[in-house]
């Protein structure tokens, strides 16, 4: 080591000089950016920006609304798809103006954030998607059979419990490979609630939630991950949000509803479910934790669907000084637009438009919002 050539030493010092230069430039750039960020607020009031955070499922729809709405009114809507749990945490801490959640607030969550209203914004359907070579879409399945499959009790596609529902279909003697979500998700919440509803003994409450300890199967990240797994694996079955099955042209099961019909998941059959459930919805500021449109009444209702909610405070002054009267008015106007005209953008993005009965409930909720006790709508 003592014979380290001088040349290396010289090279090192040269590199050192350049590194210092780069570091100084980098620090300068960062400083300028930070300063601009800190002082940007001083340059004029700027347009109104509404900030929301929460569920990833409605994100494509909300971003469509956001881009249309800013052109119509100049009001920006900045929605961060960080997950329902994160959205609820942020609205509880009052760091956002509204939140999005796939599941209604639990009684504990509701107690932590008193005065939050539930505003159903759109509807999601969860499909049982599968990959069986030669078998097209529309295999008949029931809730109890799905429970047996996801418990690992039914392991072959040729099992009598499946064959009995599909006498016309030649089912292969192939192993069933179950796939579920690996991340916490509102889709899992809906799916496990449905399985519990179908067979409370076989699928206990310890298996109901946004993320559970699965009896069998492998996990994949996001709807896209589960969809990719099913498309690649012959014999696979999993649960996927309707929009993904439509976009990927996946084969999905018809599921039997309480009226006894096997229903293919679609925008129409899901809308029918929401329509059927509307009369039983609670008041906007009441406890929604028991609300469910699973197994909704009606002969054409697809049985596995749910609302996704916007959460907004009934008295907007609780948000703090950032919520001015102008901003409060803009927020309510945006939500009003979203549940009315905004619904026209749903179908193109494979979201289910709200039924009129639900829109009326939303309108009632939005009219009850106050700023300093004053109505805004």
């Amino acid at each position, binding site marked *: 080591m003592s014979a380290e050539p001088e040349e290396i030493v010289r090279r090192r010092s040269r590199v050192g000089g350049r590194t210092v*230069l780069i570091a100084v430039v980098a620090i300068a750039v960062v400083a300028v950016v930070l300063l601009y960020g800190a002082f940007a607020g001083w340059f004029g009031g700027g347009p109104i920006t509404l900030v929301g955070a929460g569920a990833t499922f409605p994100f494509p729809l909300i971003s469509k609304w956001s881009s249309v709405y800013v052109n119509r009114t100049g009001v920006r809507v900045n929605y961060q798809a960080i*997950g329902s749990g994160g959205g609820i945490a942020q609205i509880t801490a009052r760091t956002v103006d509204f939140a999005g959640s796939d599941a209604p607030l639990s009684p504990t969550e509701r107690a932590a954030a008193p005065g939050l209203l539930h505003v159903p914004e759109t509807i999601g359907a969860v499909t049982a998607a599968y990959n069986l070579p030669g078998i097209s879409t529309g295999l008949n399945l029931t809730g109890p059979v799905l429970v047996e499959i996801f418990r690992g009790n039914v392991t072959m596609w040729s099992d009598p419990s499946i064959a009995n529902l599909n006498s016309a279909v030649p089912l292969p003697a192939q192993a069933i490979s179950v796939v579920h979500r690996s991340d916490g998700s509102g889709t899992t919440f809906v799916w496990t609630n449905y399985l519990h509803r179908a067979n409370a003994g076989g699928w206990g409450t*310890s298996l109901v939630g946004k993320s559970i300890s699965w009896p069998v199967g492998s*996990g994949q990240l996001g709807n896209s991950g589960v969809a990719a797994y099913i498309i*690649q694996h012959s014999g696979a079955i999993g649960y996927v949000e309707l929009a993904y099955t439509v976009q990927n042209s996946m084969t999905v099961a018809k599921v039997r509803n309480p009226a006894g019909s096997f229903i293919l998941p679609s925008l129409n059959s899901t809308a029918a479910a929401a329509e059927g459930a509307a009369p039983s919805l609670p008041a906007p500021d009441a406890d929604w934790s028991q609300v469910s449109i699973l197994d909704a009444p009606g002969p054409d209702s697809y049985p596995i669907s749910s609302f996704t909610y916007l959460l907004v405070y009934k008295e907007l002054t609780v948000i703090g000084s950032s919520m001015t009267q102008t901003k409060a008015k803009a927020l309510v106007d945006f939500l009003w637009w979203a549940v009315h005209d905004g619904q026209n953008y749903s179908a193109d993005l494979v979201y289910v438009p709200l039924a009129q009965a639900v829109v009326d409930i939303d309108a009632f909720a939005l009219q009850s919002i106050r700023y300093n006790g004053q109505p805004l709508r």
Partner: protein
Amino acid sequence: MLSLRIVRRIARGLPRSLGDPLFKGLSAVVAIGVVALLGIITLVLAFAAEPSIRRFGPSFLAGGVWNPVPPEVFGAAPFVYGTLVTSALALLIGVPISLGIAIFLSELAPAWLRIPLTYIVELLAAVPSVVYGLWGIFVLAPTMRSVIEPAVQATLGFLPIFQGTPIGSDKFAAGVILAVMVVPTISAVSREALLAVPANQREAALSLGATRWETTRLAVLRYARAGIFGAIILGLGRAVGETMAVTMMIGNRNAISVSLFDQGQTIASWIANNFTEAGPLELSALIELGLVLMLMSLLINVFARLMVRRVLRRGEGAA
């Protein structure tokens, strides 16, 4: 550029005697700052993990169940196990390949091939992990399922680690994608270490009549082993902390099983998967999991350092 000129002007205006102390002071502040930051991060993590630590105690490390449905039960064992297995597998596959690349690039490759190949290897080290994950899910996973895993099973299927049904997203696949990801890092850094070996080492070995291979083994690799070891530790760091690519390949199952063809889960991947939708206690348990990962990295580093020191000392004795 303007700010740079200002900095220069200020620097020129300073009395000569002030420059050195100022430089020393600034460097010290930055160096101490990094250590303090690590301390603060650990403290904040420990504070946030406190509800989980209090509720589960040491059983958190041994527990095999992660169920956020009340009554909540959280245990870290399957994730610790999965992290160790996939990282070890990644190094087992990745290190020999990386060393081969590094030796070829520094010792054997003709000059016209050396520069473009080096460039490509360094480029690979900068590819974001989600890209590897996507490649893994769409290209590697089907190949693993239909070609590689059946072939491995046909030849080595008698070993307990290669039993079960290969489905292409399992611990083995995760280990392979991690190996692919650590190869550029390890080979790029190892190559630097090999290049730093003085030419007279090689000349001395060759002049004693050593073959190319003997020269490389005795004069070059031995001289550079501390640097190579550092490269391997860097690669290990990438493997242990990887989230996206692992999530997409490992099958995400919270279970400890011997077979590499079974699904598993790692700490980093599990945290990334569940952070968004976690309730208060689960969040605290996830943060405790992060602490466990930090502790594991620390232990691995200490262990590696001890090993390097032992290897170096032995080398001195031999010389």
